[in-house]
């Protein structure tokens, strides 16, 4: 029995997730797969078993999803929380509450195809290798792509720097300019506190070849259990689409100016969201 068979047999399907998948536009080959290996009939099991419980755990309040334009778009947001759970919650939110439901394609670290089982799970669930050509091809095929331009810098930052955006990469802006794709800024509030890390255990990270190893604030109290995310409440807000024009292969400084516009917009959305947040939980 292959991994796909195992998933379809043992991972039960959530009715809401299933009906959202059934409403997605069909861009598959005659065997039900897209060229990247995405298979909605398997993805609905994965979303039901992993994405949906996570979504329920963080109970997000979602606003602004009507801002998602039809067709291709780049969803650009702040990354936080030590584990990429924010991305999964955003993807489930767009699927369940998008009107029509949107399948968000996430770009993952380049090591993932090497990891047994994870590579299959990601591919069937619609995640692709974070490569600019992959991203361009997906955009040209009319997909919505989720990008965290901060990458591991944002995800692994300590709690003292919460809700302060780190440096943004330029790749997303070059792709937006090249493919004439609108950028939808979004903010995630609540993920920062899910695993409040006080420091990065650099020697261990280097040993493991990982970008960082967090030291949770409550590590002395809970030991390894402190690596489980706390049930903080998430607030997701999607802003109005931003369009940019210019040369995609322009000088870095000129691209940086455009990136800064998006970054400032997201920071403003975060700051505004924080003032409205009643409590962390």
């Amino acid at each position, binding site marked *: 029995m*292959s*991994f*796909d068979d195992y998933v379809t047999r043992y991972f039960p399907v959530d009715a809401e997730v299933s009906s959202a998948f059934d409403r997605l536009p069909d861009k598959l*080959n*005659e*065997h039900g*797969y897209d*060229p*990247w*290996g995405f298979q909605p009939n398997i993805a609905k099991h994965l979303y039901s078993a992993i994405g949906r419980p996570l979504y329920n755990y963080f109970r997000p309040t979602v606003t602004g999803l009507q801002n998602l334009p039809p067709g291709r778009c780049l969803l650009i947001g702040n990354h936080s929380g030590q584990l990429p759970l924010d991305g999964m919650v955003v993807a489930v939110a767009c699927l369940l509450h998008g009107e029509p439901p949107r399948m968000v394609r996430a770009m993952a670290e*380049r*090591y*993932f*195809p*090497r990891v*047994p*089982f994870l*590579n*299959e799970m990601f*591919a069937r669930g619609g995640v*692709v*290798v974070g*490569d600019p*050509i*992959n991203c361009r*091809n997906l955009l040209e095929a009319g997909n919505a792509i989720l990008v965290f331009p901060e990458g591991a810098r944002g995800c692994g930052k300590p709690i003292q720097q919460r809700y302060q955006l780190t440096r943004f990469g330029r790749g997303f802006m070059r792709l937006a300019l090249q493919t004439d794709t609108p950028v939808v800024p979004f903010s995630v509030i609540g993920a920062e506190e899910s695993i409040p890390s006080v420091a990065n255990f650099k020697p261990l990270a280097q040993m493991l070849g990982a970008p960082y190893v967090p030291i949770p604030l409550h590590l002395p109290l809970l030991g390894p259990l402190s690596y489980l995310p706390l049930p903080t409440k998430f607030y997701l807000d999607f802003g109005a689409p931003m369009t940019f024009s210019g040369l995609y292969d322009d000088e870095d400084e000129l691209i940086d100016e455009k990136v800064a516009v998006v970054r400032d917009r997201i920071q403003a959305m975060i700051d505004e969201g924080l003032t409205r947040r009643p409590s962390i939980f």
Partner: protein
Amino acid sequence: MATIIVTGIAGSLARLTALELLRRGDEVIGVDYRPKPDTFPKGILFYRASYNKTRIADVFRRHKPDAVLHLGRVATRRVDGNKRFDLNVVGSAKIQELSVQHRVKTLIVLSTYHIYGAHPHNHVPILEDEPVRALQTVPELSDAIQLDTQAVTWTYRHRAMRTVVLRPSNVIGPHINNTTCRYLRLPRIPYLLGFNPMWQFIHETDLLRAVLLVLDSEDRWGAFNVTGRGALPVVEALKLAGAPLVPLLPGFIKPYLRLNPGARPALPGYLIDFLKYPVMVSDQRFREGFGFEPRVGVREAVRSSVTRMPMDAVL
């Protein structure tokens, strides 16, 4: 009526192509470094000649071909090291030179999608102009890469002759006896547990049609990916073969092959990476350029390839 030299004529694909050309009324001259097979189409002249030796020059001189179908790339498992280099690299260069010398109008070179290499960083889909990665991981494919690149260089260097390089995905079919077909025909099929990349296939009849389309076109040249309809994760495709599957953790595949020598020719070292990482090619350029529409889907193609059909029935 055209005079056409077909290399690799001892192989099934070349014989099927030659037969089709014969039916259309062309004169076909078959060349191979291997001996003449027992079942050989009547009406086709056979020469046994290594592509890198002088005898191949005699064939060109004697027959003055209008077109050359160089379908005779030597597979990794058949011939080792130096001899394979001589046939695939030195030999192919000689065929190209002779083609120019004898004012051949069209040269078609059959390459393979394997040259792109199975690599975890591969994007989807891969276009013809993109870098080939196979050498990074599999040195055994160096001669296949060199054969391809020198043919591609030819497309630009000798514009009086039209050179078309075809890079098909996994070629399968009831008459084909290549590595992929052998893999599908194993009594127990091993695969890598935890990996299941997308695979593309092209059925022998589709590839044959593609070659004829290229031959009949007049102004298109260059390198083209060519593949059949659709793609499937490799394990799903293997299931269609019907034999029991043997899931193996990556570290166990080499010991398994050591214990099962029968499976070795079906699973050479370079193929193991293809069981891990996807190599999905785009055939859009070929479809648009030549008006090609593949007819056989993955399911039919795999099912039809499980039992090997002897060539006698066709001939």
